[in-house]
């Protein structure tokens, strides 16, 4: 049955393509519709990452707020950013969302040209342009918590079937900041709880090749890793898949990925791109949009970790909560530099 499929989609707050295709405005009761345009970077909506999350946020806004109409375009090359952003701005869109730091130059250029349009850029900090809001995510904090979970579980062998080697494996899609911040935090969090443990780190250079992700995971597993933390979009799904087959554990990323492999995914380091988008749309609708950089972190629940899997001892949750407070209070500073 397709029940599971739709279930799935619901879990992720996404309602597939049709939603974007058909419903242009989910009600215009107050008479004023705002138009939101989303420009993905070349990763596209199927990146299993921030492009998709931004889309989820926008779709949620369309469904939950009245008078929001949306449109989305996927860029095919670096040269498409300026025309695509301009298109929305020129056609009277109220808010144009640019996903990814790759669009920094393009947003700067277009925003200056269209001062009446509001812009939101994800994962970048543009300052000094009043109509540009930037959302940056301290995903190292989320990574840190995920690392703490991995470390605790490893050190005390608190899950069934963990070996005694105390090795965890991280798989990055590419050596770039949105990936590396997670990894940097994860390394620190893990080392904090399990100083003698080892973190393997490999990059796949792909965000779509599931089979490759699986192969990387298998390689790490063969080196003793029994918790895999992939930060690699669709490629990472392959890694989680491999972890499941090898009966080891995994930690999801960006969004709660427990649905991918219940019983395998211990938790997920999440990044609230959808929330950021949703909030910005709401602000635009309420006329409270403000330019400048907003930082999303543990303190404002902009990043975080998903509920722990069943079977993880309560003590882990307790420690995580403590450490979370320590990060929020500044007692623990998380670096964004990956240890290679």
């Amino acid at each position: 049955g397709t029940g599971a499929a739709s279930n799935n989609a619901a879990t992720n707050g996404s309602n597939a393509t049709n939603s974007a295709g058909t419903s242009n405005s989910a009600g215009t009761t107050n008479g004023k519709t705002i138009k939101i345009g989303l420009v993905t970077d070349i990763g596209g909506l199927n990146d299993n990452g921030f492009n998709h999350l931004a889309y989820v946020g926008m779709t949620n806004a369309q469904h939950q707020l009245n008078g929001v109409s949306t449109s989305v375009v996927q860029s095919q090359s670096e040269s498409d950013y300026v025309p695509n952003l301009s298109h929305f701005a020129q056609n009277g869109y109220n808010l144009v969302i640019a996903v990814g730091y790759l669009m920094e130059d393009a947003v700067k250029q277009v925003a200056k040209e269209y001062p009446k349009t509001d812009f939101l850029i994800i994962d970048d900090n543009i300052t000094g342009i009043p109509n540009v809001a930037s959302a940056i995510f301290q995903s190292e904090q989320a990574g840190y918590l995920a690392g703490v979970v991995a470390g605790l579980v490893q050190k005390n062998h608190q899950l069934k079937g963990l070996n005694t080697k105390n090795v965890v494996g991280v798989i990055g899609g590419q050596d770039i900041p949105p990936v590396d911040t997670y990894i940097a935090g994860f390394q620190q969090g893990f080392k904090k709880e399990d100083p003698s443990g080892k973190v393997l780190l490999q990059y796949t250079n792909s965000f779509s090749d599931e089979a490759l992700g699986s192969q990387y995971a298998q390689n790490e597993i063969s080196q003793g890793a029994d918790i895999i933390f992939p930060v690699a979009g669709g490629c990472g799904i392959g890694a989680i898949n491999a972890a499941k087959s090898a009966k080891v554990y995994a930690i999801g990323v960006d969004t709660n990925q427990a649905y991918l492999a219940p019983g395998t995914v211990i938790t997920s380091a999440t990044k609230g791109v959808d929330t950021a988008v949703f909030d910005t749309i709401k602000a635009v609708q309420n006329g409270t949009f403000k330019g400048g950089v907003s930082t999303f972190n543990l303190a404002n629940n902009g990043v975080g970790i998903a509920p722990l899997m069943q079977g993880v001892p309560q003590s882990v949750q307790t420690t995580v909560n403590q450490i979370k407070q320590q990060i929020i209070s500044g007692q623990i500073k998380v670096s964004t530099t990956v240890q290679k």
Partner: protein
Amino acid sequence: MIFSDPEIWAATLSMAVPLALPAIGGTFSERTGVVNIAMEGIMLIGAFFAVTFSYWTGSAWLGLLAALICGGLTASALAWGAIRVSADQTVLGMGINIFAAGLTTFLLNTLFGFNGTPINTPKLPNVSIPGLDKIPYIGVIFQNQSILVYIMIVLVIVSHWFLFHTRLGLRMRSVGEHPLAADTLGINVWRIRYFGVILSGLFSALGGAYLSIGVLNGFTANMTNGRGYIALAAMIFGKWTPLGSFGAALIFGFSTALGIVLQGQGISSNLLQMIPYALTILALAGLVGRAVAPAADGIPYDPRRS
């Protein structure tokens, strides 16, 4: 030493399958004179429909069957354009690749949302052949490999025999070398070409299905990641023979595995991932040398139409 670890050979074998199968398929197609650059797209189609039907029917084998049917149909479109219309085969292939990437992504999103196919989709079994797993070193390599790995090995041998030791194989080769000569001997050039192209579609789809329900069980957009093109290179590397294609696929698989294994020593992953490609060039220049394509490869045959 890393080479003594059977893991790397197991990985090599596993990475070689989705290259070897389409490469052998490509061999059949090009041996009859039709360039199949659409293998990338057909692999995607195979991968997608394998997982979709596997999920719908609850049987991975039916998924595999669906993959073969859809791959064969896509290849028929290529065959029709290349043979009946005498269109440029490379352009057709590129068109099919773009079409397939779009279609599979579109269907994925409409049917399953954006996050890939459900994790509880049945996949093809992994098997260990009794007896084989008793052999010390080799046993580890073949331990718990996908059944498609064994199917591939059988197909490699059968394909080679078929192409070089059967009547139909002889006819296929003759058509790819000199279709006019084959035609003057009463061989139905077009029929043979259809056969070769569709065969290549079946093999490519099988390679795609390996990705989605063989190693894994799931589909993500563009999950073939250029393997169809690498398979094209493997086919040429293997001098348009099934055994050679398999050997080339093994080299690619091995060097990819090597790129994985060598990581983690602080060298940039970008530099390490050049290894497969650099090795290929070296091997090509050093070992393989001149490879001559079937003489009529890529040339439409239509002496009686004008």
